[in-house]
């Protein structure tokens, strides 16, 4: 499945970015949801929309993902976001079955605060990243 392949590529890119995992204190990168008792700092990425372009016979996909750092402190979440940005903005993904990573760039910022089950704040800071990939 192209979506699975792209998400595997995104996870692999983030989980193998040493500056990011050092910032997190581990490979705390999650697709869609973090575990119930998450670490102090982590990354979540979520599919937002997009799909096949269908503008030529050559298949290509144009999709949008939200990728953000989550932490109890705003500064800590921002630091994680900085490493995400360095890893992804105008970077590349290796997507199985898809030959060309045409475009990967940040488009919009995400910055909001939630409360966890104990009432403590959790800051989410990151961005929307657009990926355009082309089939083999």
């Amino acid at each position: 499945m192209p979506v699975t392949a792209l998400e595997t590529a995104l996870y692999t890119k983030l989980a193998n970015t040493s500056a990011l995992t050092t910032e997190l204190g581990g490979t705390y990168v999650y697709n869609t949801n973090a575990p119930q008792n998450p670490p102090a700092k982590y990354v979540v990425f979520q599919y937002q929309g997009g799909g096949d372009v269908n503008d030529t016979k050559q298949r290509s996909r144009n999709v949008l993902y939200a990728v953000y750092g989550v932490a109890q402190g705003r500064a800590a979440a921002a630091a994680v976001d900085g490493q995400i940005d360095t890893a992804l903005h105008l970077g590349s993904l290796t997507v199985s079955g898809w030959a060309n990573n045409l475009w990967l760039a940040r488009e919009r910022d995400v910055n909001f605060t939630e409360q966890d089950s104990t009432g403590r704040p959790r800051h989410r800071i990151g961005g929307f990243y657009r990926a355009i990939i082309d089939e083999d």
Partner: protein
Amino acid sequence: MAGGYVGSAAYLAFGGTVLDTFYRNFTPTQTGATVDQTSGADTAIKRLFTLKDGNASMTYRAETGTAGTPIWALMPIGASGTLEWGPEGTATSAPRAHVQAFLTAKTPPIIYNDVTVWQFSWEFDDVITETVY
């Protein structure tokens, strides 16, 4: 039963180079020239059809690296060859059109945040042959 067709079925080629994999839009246009043959007693302009003419244009998503270079190189400005299009593909009895043409314009805009799309234009050097595969 009647029905329509879409561009995903199309076959396009110029000078033997198949172009339909990355094409986005192909527009062949047939035109004809006339001369004025109005005479003094006429109350409206009268025309005489003279010569057929035509042109075609195409937008084509740029290919990268070794896949893209041959297409661009095979399409030099001034190139002469057979421009062929089969809007419903090349199955037996599908409509086929072809004409000798010159490539008269090629434009490679470069767009920072999107895929690059080339533009090609031809001018016909003969009458279109409309037949079937």
